């Protein structure tokens, strides 16, 4: 930059009082600043001597900016939300109890990260070093554990809850206390659930009706089992209902709410907000919890199983209406609404929900508990019946009306018949075989499916000819769960996979490689390849689930890989494919893989396959790509899967309907 250009800056006499910064003056300072900035550092002083010769104050201003420019480092480099987050975090830190323990050890649990906070204190993701599994570790705030009687009651309740064994109830592994520098810390270690809370699901979008009924029915099942064991949940709310990607609903925190409840008698009612006096520090939590309280809870009376039915009714209402039935600005307002007011009628919603659903909710939300569902079982039955009826109605609506005599009965599309045949074949075949279907991966619909077949067959027999009904019923039962009732049945896809495992010792290969289903625990450092074959052609993608530094789930692309299969995802029918070799890292834990088998190349995954280079290491870090992949996975996660481990051949057979099958594969290593 030549000096001449800054001559225009020279008439400094204009600035009468150089100490007062004006827009003109600032402009002048800026121009000199930019001129100087473009120079090498050692030439700047000479330039300033010259440019500010008659204006020492200008030089002070410019030098201040130049110094700041050099010193600013990463100043403003990260957006403001992050700076604010830092500050908020400090407060969250101060609130968290007993203190932030991430990275520390509580007994044999190594705390990995903070998962969230709730009325029960903080929840951490932790590694159980004894059993090599990940757990959700709840640390109870000291204020809840000061009262020995309360701790005793809590332990009693938690022990009872830990005896509950039901797929819809989160398993409690251990309850205990350890001594730490800040005194004894009470903890609960429980099954770590990946998925999202119903609270988040409600926030995302309006939940489809059939899914709403499924969630409520699974929740009612869980309540039924707990109630039979004499345990009342006391705090059913969307935050305590977890939805797993595979469709399982898991209820958290059975009976634990007892810990946070103050001891109180009915006489306490009418004192100022008696039910919320215990938790002054977290007003949001109180408001959140108050909305789901039954009238008897709000009054401070004893609760029983029917109180849970009420709370589930509130949750159901919220899923249907998109908002809670009892609202208010303060917990007291909410409580008044619960005790005194009727919620806004669901019949006003558009589209109007089925009247049977209105009846179920009204029954769950009867103020007088004698008029409510007396057992969660009754509620579960009503919910399931309604769901089946709606599914059947939708299916019947697809059959051309009404001259349905056997002679001129409508043609069932060939793909329906095929699907039905395939379904029957599968049903017959699966049961007697000496194979184990991994329960944790099987769709929860698998069990009800058989009874549904019977129901559907019975009803349909009156409508169409028996032979037609049988295949149609099978088609109804086996069409993919996630599809809307009007969607055509998806084709079946299948494939087989197995691992080739190379054991390692002292970083050297040790013994011959062996074939594996991936279910036994491995040693860290071992290497493996994945093998894959399908009778159909399609596209194969393999992702490795990992956590971002922020704790969010992200993915590493493992396959396609440039040197294998020409870098393409497309695999011809019946052609075995072996992937590259992967290491099980030195750190112990579980390596989560997703095998994705798609009829067509998936654009979301094609977009990221190029990341398999030494720089990116396959890691999807662009937010848009990551979101696209997440959406893709979420959209495909619901397809129904049959995963069958054939131990005799050391391979896993997967079948499912839908254009895309997503199979989680977890390799444990220590």
């Amino acid at each position: 930059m030549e000096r001449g250009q800054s001559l225009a800056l020279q008439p400094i006499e204009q600035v009468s009082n150089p100490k007062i910064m004006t827009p003109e003056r600032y402009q002048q300072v800026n121009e000199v600043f930019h001129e100087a900035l473009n120079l090498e550092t050692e030439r700047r002083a000479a330039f300033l001597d010259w440019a500010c010769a008659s204006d020492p104050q200008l030089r002070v201003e410019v030098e201040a900016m130049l110094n700041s420019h050099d010193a600013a480092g990463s100043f403003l480099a990260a957006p403001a939300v992050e700076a604010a987050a830092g500050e908020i975090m400090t407060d969250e830190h101060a609130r968290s109890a007993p203190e932030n323990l991430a990275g520390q050890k509580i007994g044999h649990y190594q705390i990995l990260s903070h998962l969230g906070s709730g009325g029960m204190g903080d929840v951490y993701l932790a590694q159980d070093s004894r059993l090599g599994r990940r757990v959700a570790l709840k640390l109870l705030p000291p204020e809840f554990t000061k009262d020995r009687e309360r701790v005793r009651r809590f332990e009693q309740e938690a022990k009872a809850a830990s005896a509950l064994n039901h797929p819809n109830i989160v398993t409690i592994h251990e309850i205990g206390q350890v001594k730490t520098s800040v005194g004894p810390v009470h903890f609960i270690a429980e099954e770590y659930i990946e998925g999202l809370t119903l609270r988040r699901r409600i926030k995302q979008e309006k939940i489809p009706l059939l899914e709403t009924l499924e969630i409520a029915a699974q929740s009612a099942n869980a309540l039924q089992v707990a109630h039979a064991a004499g345990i009342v949940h006391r705090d059913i709310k969307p935050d305590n209902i977890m939805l797993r990607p595979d469709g399982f609903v898991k209820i958290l925190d059975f009976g634990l709410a007892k810990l946070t409840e103050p001891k109180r008698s009915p006489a306490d009612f009418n004192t100022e907000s008696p039910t919320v006096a215990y938790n002054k520090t977290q007003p949001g939590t109180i408001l959140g919890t108050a909305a789901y309280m039954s009238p008897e809870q709000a009054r401070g009376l004893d609760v029983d199983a029917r109180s849970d039915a009420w709370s589930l009714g509130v949750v159901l209402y919220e899923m249907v209406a998109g908002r809670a039935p009892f609202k208010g600005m303060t917990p007291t307002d909410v409580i008044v609404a619960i005790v005194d007011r009727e919620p806004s009628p669901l019949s006003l919603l558009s589209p109007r929900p089925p009247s049977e659903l209105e009846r179920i909710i009204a029954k769950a939300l009867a103020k007088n508990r004698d008029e409510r569902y007396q057992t969660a079982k009754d509620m579960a039955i009503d919910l399931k019946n309604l769901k089946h009826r709606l599914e059947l109605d939708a299916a019947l609506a697809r059959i051309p009306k009404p001259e349905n005599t056997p002679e001129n009965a409508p043609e069932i599309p060939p793909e329906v018949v095929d699907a039905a045949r395939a379904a029957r074949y599968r049903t017959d075949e699966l049961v007697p075989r000496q194979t184990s279907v991994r329960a944790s991966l099987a769709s929860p619909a698998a069990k009800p499916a058989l009874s549904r077949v019977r129901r559907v067959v019975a009803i349909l027999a009156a409508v169409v000819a028996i032979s037609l009904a049988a295949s149609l019923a099978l088609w109804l039962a086996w069409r993919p769960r996630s599809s809307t009732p009007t969607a055509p049945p998806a084709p079946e896809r299948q494939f087989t996979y197995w691992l080739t495992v190379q054991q390692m010792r002292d970083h050297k290969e040790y013994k011959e490689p062996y074939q594996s289903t991936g279910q036994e625990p491995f040693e860290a450092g071992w290497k493996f390849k994945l093998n894959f074959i399908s009778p159909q052609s399609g596209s194969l993608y393999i992702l490795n689930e990992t956590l971002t530094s922020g704790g969010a789930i992200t993915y590493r692309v493992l396959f396609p890989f440039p040197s294998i299969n020409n870098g393409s995802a497309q695999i011809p029918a019946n052609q075995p494919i072996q992937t590259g070799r992967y290491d099980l890292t030195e750190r112990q834990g579980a390596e989560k893989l997703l095998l994705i088998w798609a009829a067509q190349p998936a654009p979301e995954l094609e977009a990221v396959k190029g990341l398999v280079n030494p720089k990116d290491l396959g890691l999807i870090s662009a937010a848009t790509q990551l979101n696209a992949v997440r959406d893709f996975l979420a959209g495909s996660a619901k397809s129904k899967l049959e995963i069958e481990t054939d131990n005799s051949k050391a391979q896993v057979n997967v079948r499912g309907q839908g254009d895309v099958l997503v199979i989680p594969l977890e390799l444990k290593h220590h």
Partner: protein
Amino acid sequence: MAESITQLLLKWSEGDQSALDQLMPLVYDELRQLARSYLRRHAHNHTMQPTVLVNEAYLRLVNQHQVTWENRAQFFGLASKLMRNLLVDYIRQRRAAKRGGGDYNLSLTFADKAARQQSQSEIDLIALDEALGRLAVLSPQQSTIVELRFFGGLTIPETASAMGISHATVEREWSAARAWLYSQLSK
């Protein structure tokens, strides 16, 4: 059904003041979540760029696909201003509550952590907001750039297209604004 933050922002930018009331709790909620994930990141001691995390949060906050190209510039301007107001108010309230309540029982180990934490997020948003107010008088263009970049989380190209000026101008004005603000805050 809770309206999305983007819908509320759009409503608000069309003059619906009530949207703002609904908006605040949602944004605060997101911020708290962000703070928690921030916390986890520190626990892991990972090396990923902080901006990845923040962009993710911002994408969640503002679904840019819902915004048409016509109102994009105006929308980002408003969204950035809003973020500025929300964040600064939030911090202000938090501090007031802390001073007033004063009932935080910090253990010694934690107090130490808090001190380190403070030094890491060295930006005092309230002081910055005040300095930015002074900058708006001196150079409205620089102040807008800071608002879009720092509070709105826009990149330089995004800022340039939102303001209809060249990349080079944005870069030049941004570096001056940054230097000036830094000198103001280190006084």
